[in-house]
């Protein structure tokens, strides 16, 4: 399936939900915040967030800043 993750096109095999996608892509999933097509998805709902072709996903986390 073709997903647009953080602005980059990624081809992901199978039918992942948000949990499995984040686990696959992010080394520290606990600190990830996810947006699916512009909507924030709470992490307790990631299992129910099924993904489809062309979905836009933003995965963000905390960094240093002033």
């Amino acid at each position, binding site marked *: 399936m073709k997903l647009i*993750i*953080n*602005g*980059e096109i*990624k081809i992901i095999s199978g039918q992942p939900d948000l949990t499995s996608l984040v686990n696959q*892509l*992010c*080394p*520290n999933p606990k*600190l*990830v*915040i996810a*947006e699916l097509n512009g909507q*924030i998805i*709470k992490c307790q709902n990631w299992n129910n967030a099924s993904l489809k072709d062309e979905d836009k996903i*933003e*995965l*963000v*986390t*905390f*960094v*240093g*800043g*002033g």
Partner: protein
Amino acid sequence: MDDLIIAGKSFKSRFMLGTGKFKNKNELTECITLSGTEIVTVALRRIDLNRHEENILEYIPKHITLMTNTSGARNAEEAVRIARLAREAGYGNWIKIEVINDSKYLLPDNQETVKATEILAAEGFVVMPYMYPDLNTARALVKAGAATVMPLGSLIGSNQGLKTKEFIQILLNEIDIPIVVDAGIGRPSQAAEAMEMGAHAVLVNTAIATADQPAVISKAFALAVEAGRLAFLAKLPEQKNQAQASSPLTGFLYEK
């Protein structure tokens, strides 16, 4: 010393630390410990999917109040979006609004900042807007529900100190919510100067993170902030244009 109170929460330290630009994140932890800061800022960014990065939160002790900045936002809408994402992560609802659409001077867009403050305060965020020290804007921010205002001392990362001193003084005279001088503070003496004027707190990042010994300088800043606060509370006497002898001018030893 008197506590700093923001949104009903009490703090012993009036020194806030920004966490950007630290080469070694262990030094950030040392700065937090040594300076006794209780409020630190962090930012939100897209995860880099191509390399493993350490997460900044792992270097910040749990008792610290985190304030997420909205850096990267070019307008109110983007700032609101970043704030909502930050809250979703479960690290509280303290937000430093930073709306910047000028990459040369990084000056905050006061109008968009007021708009974002209005929206986020209504949603229950504790909003601390970074702003250009303008009295009309500061009044609008208070009306919009800001918890503090954070006027810039000088350009972000410039270490130039209190270039906007007279205008910050006007805010101190006229605004009834805490004023945190943010940006451009490059030396402990400048932090002390802001506090002597009556600023309620100071936020420093670049001058500490880019110093040779960040932890040592963070302590120096924290001490300067404390010294400045004490001087303000003790009510410094006014400057005079003429000498006033400190020793008695009569009864000299050899006087006839």
